[in-house]
């Protein structure tokens, strides 16, 4: 298996007591598959992604990427963050080339590469801008270009459009479809927006409330680009919504 | 496991301090590398401290008399400085015409350190309490105004809109929205100014005084009594820290909800 999530459990311990967040989470992802994790807020989606990224330690279980156990952060996985997290003191170019630069790749090579990804996400002409000058949608485009530019095997996207307005969000969803058709990658995409999930996914994994486990999986084989208003789309939306336990 | 680690660094801190005192002791008392007038040994500092509690040599006052004299001056200047600085800072930030007229003058005056006023204040007020308090006043006034001003200016505009929608008058918004939400800044200002007061006090006492901690270390220097200079410096540091602690205590009492 390409990416294997093997029986992950996670409990946060603090003075206030134990908080069991993930329980027996177990699934596999094929190479170049676009998997969406869909679940209610605060159910541990970010925690799961952080464990796969190596930024958070699991309480038990294992993550394997191409049969190698994941223990710490590394450039074979890239994260696009819920709160974007650009380096504010670097320009767009500086942010995108950060990964290759840290690994000591020659300037001419890495900048040519970075330029390609900047063009791909549609930011041509903004290379020298600082993040403060960009809109939310443009910032997240930089985040996506930065992630792709470190040539990861797996893209981990944690509600990347959660902070955007609805209109920009639709636009960015189309962009993701376009970009991932162009750059074939294994993607694990987290969202709490059902339309976004159906629009993007090859497969949707639905999580339960805390402590979350996998509730159900759906394989989505609608042709792309998908139509939010098609009958099949609406039926899936109806079905998946009905099983998710949104709580207050 | 975690607790053990904390202890490890505590131990490093303690060892460093001990080594420091030991080296100090060795280079002074044992090897005598420095003349007594430059660097006293740590034990002589300690004994001077004990002695100075009751002795009036060489400056005509015991340690407590100097502390008391300094505190009176510093607190007088501080209270007046804060008392004037608060309303000035608030009205500069809240009323545009005041801002226009006062801000440039203030921006210029604030670059002049309080110490530079000493000759003028001594001509105006003599070298008694009022001249020294005036010097402290300048530093405290500037520190208070700067922080209060930026605090009020940063009052969340949303709060102000909400207050306006509910029909509050300008003065009322100031009293019930702007000042409370600027309280943390105001206290920062009070803390910064307290540091300024203490600094200004020492400066004033070095230049013109007959009592006080600044005067005490100045006289000690004239007599080449480095041990007393260090006793004085430590006392100045401790008193400054105590005043800050007292203010922080008040702050915690007042700024509870923020």
């Amino acid at each position, binding site marked *: 298996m390409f990416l294997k999530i093997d029986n992950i459990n996670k409990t946060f311990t603090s003075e206030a007591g134990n908080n069991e967040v993930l329980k027996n989470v177990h699934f596999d992802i094929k190479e170049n598959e676009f998997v969406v994790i869909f679940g209610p807020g605060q159910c541990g989606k970010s925690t799961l992604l952080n464990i796969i*990224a*190596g*930024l958070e330690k699991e309480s038990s279980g294992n993550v394997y990427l191409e049969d190698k156990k994941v223990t710490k952060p*590394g*450039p074979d*996985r890239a994260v696009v*963050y819920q709160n974007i*997290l650009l*380096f*504010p*003191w670097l320009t767009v170019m500086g942010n995108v080339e*950060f990964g290759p630069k*840290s690994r000591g790749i020659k300037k001419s090579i890495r900048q040519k590469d970075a330029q390609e990804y900047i063009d791909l996400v549609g930011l041509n002409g903004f290379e020298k801008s*600082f993040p*403060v000058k960009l809109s939310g949608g443009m910032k997240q485009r930089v985040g996506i270009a*930065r992630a792709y530019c*470190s040539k990861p095997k797996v893209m981990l996207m944690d509600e990347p459009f959660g902070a955007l307005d609805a209109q920009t969000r639709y636009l960015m969803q189309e962009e993701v479809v376009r970009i991932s058709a162009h750059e074939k990658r294994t993607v694990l995409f987290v969202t709490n927006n059902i339309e976004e999930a159906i629009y993007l996914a090859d497969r949707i994994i639905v999580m339960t409330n805390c402590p979350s486990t996998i509730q159900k999986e759906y394989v989505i084989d609608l042709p792309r680009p998908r139509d939010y208003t098609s009958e099949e789309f609406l039926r899936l939306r109806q079905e998946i919504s009905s099983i998710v336990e949104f709580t207050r | 496991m975690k607790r053990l680690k904390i202890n490890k660094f505590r131990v*490093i*801190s303690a060892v*460093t*301090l001990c080594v420091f005192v030991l080296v100090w002791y060795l280079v002074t008392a044992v090897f005598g590398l420095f003349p007594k*007038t*430059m660097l006293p040994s740590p034990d002589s500092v300690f004994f001077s401290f004990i002695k100075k509690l009751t002795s009036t040599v060489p400056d005509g006052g015991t340690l407590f008399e100097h502390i008391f004299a300094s505190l009176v001056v510093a607190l007088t200047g501080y209270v007046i400085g804060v008392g004037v600085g608060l309303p000035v800072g608030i009205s500069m930030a809240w009323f545009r015409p005041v801002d*226009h*007229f*006062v*801000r*440039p*003058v203030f921006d*210029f*005056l604030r*670059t*002049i*350190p*309080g*110490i*530079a*006023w000493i*000759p*003028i204040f*001594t*001509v105006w007020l003599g070298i008694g309490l009022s001249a020294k308090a005036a010097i402290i006043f300048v530093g405290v006034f500037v520190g208070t105004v700067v922080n209060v001003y930026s605090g009020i200016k940063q009052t969340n505009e949303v709060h102000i809109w909400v207050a306006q929608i509910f029909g509050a008058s300008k003065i009322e918004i100031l009293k019930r929205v702007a000042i409370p939400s600027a309280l943390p800044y105001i206290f920062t200002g009070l803390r910064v100014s307290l*540091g300024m007061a203490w*600094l200004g006090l*020492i*400066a004033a006492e*070095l*230049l013109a005084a007959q009592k006080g901690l*600044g005067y005490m270390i100045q006289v000690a*220097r004239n007599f*080449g009594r*480095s041990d007393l*200079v*260090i006793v*004085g*410096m430590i006392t*100045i*540091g401790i008193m*400054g*820290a105590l005043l800050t602690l007292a203010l922080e205590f008040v702050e915690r009492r007042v700024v509870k909800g923020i």
Partner: protein
Amino acid sequence: MSDRKEKTFWAVVSLSLLTIVWFFASQMESMKTLLPNPVDVFKFLVAGAISPIGQHNIWGHILWSLSRVFVGYTLAAVCGIVIGSAMAWTKVGEAIIKPFYLLLRPIPSIAWIPLAILWFGIDEKSKYFIIFIGTLLIIMTNVYDGVRSVDKNLLGAARMLGAKENQLFFKVVLPSAVPQIFSGLQVGLGAAWATMVAAEMIRSSEGAGWIIIMGQNSVNMVQIYAGIILIGVVGLFLVTAMRFLEAKLCAWNIRGK
């Protein structure tokens, strides 16, 4: 831009008003000995720019003062950034440095003057030292806070992109602390200037502080006021220069305006 024009306009209006009030106040009988005529002060400054007061003309005195500040301040800035970083970024560094930092911080810079004179005599070295020690602790405090408040998630992001542990400090921590370090450098420069004035007033034979104290010794109110204005103007110039530098260096930071 018009905002700036408006500001300049009001600055001119209010400073002129201040001068006018000062002028009329100085004409009052009761103020004779306390407040000199601003015209005399202005004349004094113009004359002093050409012919010497004491050993130097005004430019010479300013140069002396600035050179003292420059030496003490530069040394303090370099040491403050290095020591502050070591204290904030490494646990051992914190354990070793912090006790001394906590002990020295509450002692105001000026309280070091007598000890500095005992240590270094009354020549330049003691002034450098006083300016150094006063500025050092201010800069250290800001560096410490700046390094400490680095966004942990940003560190995670850098690790994720393949930055090694030894790259993190220079590539993420230090740049993210730059605005705070800069505000420390700014406050520090103000403090260095003030400390310098104090040091010169207590012991020196030239410099801006000396002009004031000589004015006092020769009961020359005009000279005292001229000295104070000079100190204010140079201080204002230093602050403006720092702001300009900050705008250049921290262009990425909105707060850096």
